[in-house]
């Protein structure tokens, strides 16, 4: 889950005692105008979980309340990246002397935490890594909670920056990353103001989805991800469902097998209509899953591809057969079924659908594509 900048600053950075410019989160143009009235010259920033907001016109400087009202209304009506703007952050302006980059994030390959600093902030870290990798300082924290001011100082050695001030901030940020179950907390830019203060001008925060049960305040503040109506319904039923633009519906178990079914549809010249996985604990939800796949009006044929390891194919096949009787869909279905519970599943499919499953999933997919043309 991603938090928008304003929420990340308020809920993640502020409790750590990290400095920021004075600002207000606003939902309407009138609120933005009132905030500018109080704060004076400000930057109005689109709140949206997407990058490149400035380039997209989502960050504007304003001097008066009247100007703020117009600009705020314009920004609120925008879409940036894949998202509609979800609110505004109105923040005071300040004279900036230097911009830095700071981040604390998971390092999967090292099975540890990576701390990054660069004295050249402002641009994307990927861009910086590609063009000036020597400008990025790294530190790996292998033992959780074992990151000291001395460690921070060691990674900044030789840089012409406020080493004491930045080390203190890095330690605070790392602690906060641990406390908040963050996958990533990034400040870009971290600004050195002309008056000598270090302030976080922006903040990106990603919460580990698996930890929402113990981070309810952060989870409830997460940015809206704009799922489609059917995707939202799937999520509420504990199903991993993603709508795609094609016409071959897919029902499979396990993330790997489901992706592979999509891949084979594409490889054989068809277009997948969805990702729908009912493996793991969801293998008993065949009925609800099928209802979602078939609710997409673009679906012209269906591939049911099960290979049971943990998931029992007989239970999944029964779910599909039950749903079929209720929904009575007017489209052809093509099966391939192997693994745990295979004999019972095949017998049930032969009984209920009058067809024998294809031996190879590739043949089931081929047949499903053929009827869409």
């Amino acid at each position, binding site marked *: 889950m991603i938090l928008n900048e304003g929420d990340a600053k308020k809920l993640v950075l502020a409790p750590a005692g990290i400095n920021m410019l004075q600002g207000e989160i606003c939902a309407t143009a009138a609120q933005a105008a009132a905030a500018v009235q109080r704060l004076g010259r400000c930057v109005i920033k689109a709140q949206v979980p997407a990058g490149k907001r400035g380039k997209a016109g989502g960050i504007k400087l304003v001097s008066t309340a009247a100007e703020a009202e117009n600009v705020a209304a314009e920004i609120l009506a925008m879409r940036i990246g894949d998202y509609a703007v979800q609110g505004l952050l109105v923040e005071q302006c300040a004279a900036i002397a230097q911009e830095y980059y700071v981040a604390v994030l998971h390092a999967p390959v090292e*099975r540890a935490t990576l701390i990054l600093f660069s004295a050249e902030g402002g641009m994307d870290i990927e861009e910086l890594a590609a063009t000036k990798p020597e400008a990025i300082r790294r530190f790996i924290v292998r*033992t959780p909670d074992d990151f000291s001011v001395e460690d921070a100082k060691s990674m900044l050695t030789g840089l012409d920056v406020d080493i004491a001030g930045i080390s203190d901030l890095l330690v605070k940020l790392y602690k906060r990353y641990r406390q908040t179950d963050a*996958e990533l907390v990034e400040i870009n830019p971290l600004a050195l103001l002309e008056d000598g203060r270090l302030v976080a001008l922006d903040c990106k925060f990603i919460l*580990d989805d698996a930890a929402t049960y113990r981070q309810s305040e952060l989870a409830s503040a997460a940015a809206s991800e704009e799922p489609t109506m059917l995707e939202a319904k799937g999520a509420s039923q504990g199903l991993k469902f993603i709508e795609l633009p094609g016409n071959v519906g897919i029902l*499979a178990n396990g993330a*790997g097998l489901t992706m592979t079914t999509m891949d084979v549809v594409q490889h054989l010249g068809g277009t997948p209509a969805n990702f729908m996985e009912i493996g793991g604990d969801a293998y008993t939800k065949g009925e609800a899953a099928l209802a979602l796949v078939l609710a997409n009006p673009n679906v012209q044929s269906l591939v049911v591809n099960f290979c049971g390891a943990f998931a029992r194919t007989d239970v999944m096949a029964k779910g599909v057969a039950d749903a079929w009787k209720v929904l009575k869909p007017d489209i052809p279905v093509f099966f391939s079924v192997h693994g745990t519970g295979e004999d019972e599943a095949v017998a049930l499919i032969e009984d209920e659908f009058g067809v024998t499953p294809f031996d190879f999933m590739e043949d089931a997919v081929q047949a499903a594509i053929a009827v869409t043309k």
Partner: protein
Amino acid sequence: MSDFPIIRRTDRVLVQGMTGGQGTFWTEKMIECGTCVIGGVNPKRAGSSHLGLPIFGSVAEAVKTEQVDVTLMFIPPTLAKDAALDAITAGVRGMVILTEHIPSHDVLEIFAAAAKHGTKIVGPNTAGLVTPGAGFVGIMPGHNSNIFKPGRTGVISRSGSLGTLICLNLTRAGFGQSSFIGIGGDPMIGTTTKDALVALDHDECTDAVVMVGEIGGGMEEEAARYAVSMKKPIVAFIAGRAAPPGKRMGHAGAITAGDAGSYAGKRKALEDAGVIVVDAPRDIATALAHATKQKRAYHTA
């Protein structure tokens, strides 16, 4: 100890969470398959027995009287960290963590402790390990002889269901398996694709490797850097070519961001390393037949 993450008949397995529904079901299957299960752990039922095996209050308790080589965890995500630390601090050398959705900060603590105590971990979010003819540890149909047959091809897979299908295809094409190593679908896992590849490279029972990857992360690229030096032929399939960018495809690890973790990048890295990458699961056996014949011809020439 043993060849972990390759499971052997002699590995003594303790099942954490054996008394639950899934723990019971799969422990029975493992025993039926020849796995040497020596007992289970349940703090509330210490001293009792289940499936004719002793139940201990903790792994620490079990190792006082029993030799334990591997533990298998049927433990829900909120309790997984404590259970893992119990096994690690008890000095167990190998662990298989099946649990999906363990908070990643708990996983960081598990790995740090494992590194300190010298414990090898497979998972989290894995379906387990199978050595056909010797046994299995996890939630794989290792007992189903239509799917798994003894042979000389090693299989590495992030996914349990896709890995099962690929082993079935191999078996039907006449390629039995020396070992199946399910590494798990999470972004941060104890045994990476490369770690599993190294194990199979050193395994005398393995002549060739099938690698089943997925989009996301950098594990296939890391494995490719090792594959360059390998003499055993490798055939790979990477799932997720048709996945839209920026969306998590079921597995937490299966997500691309920009070029990082993309299908094209992984395929190129593997092909540059001499790995044969196929477009559909069905093509794996054909490619393997071709590659092993070619290798044999090369070695005898």
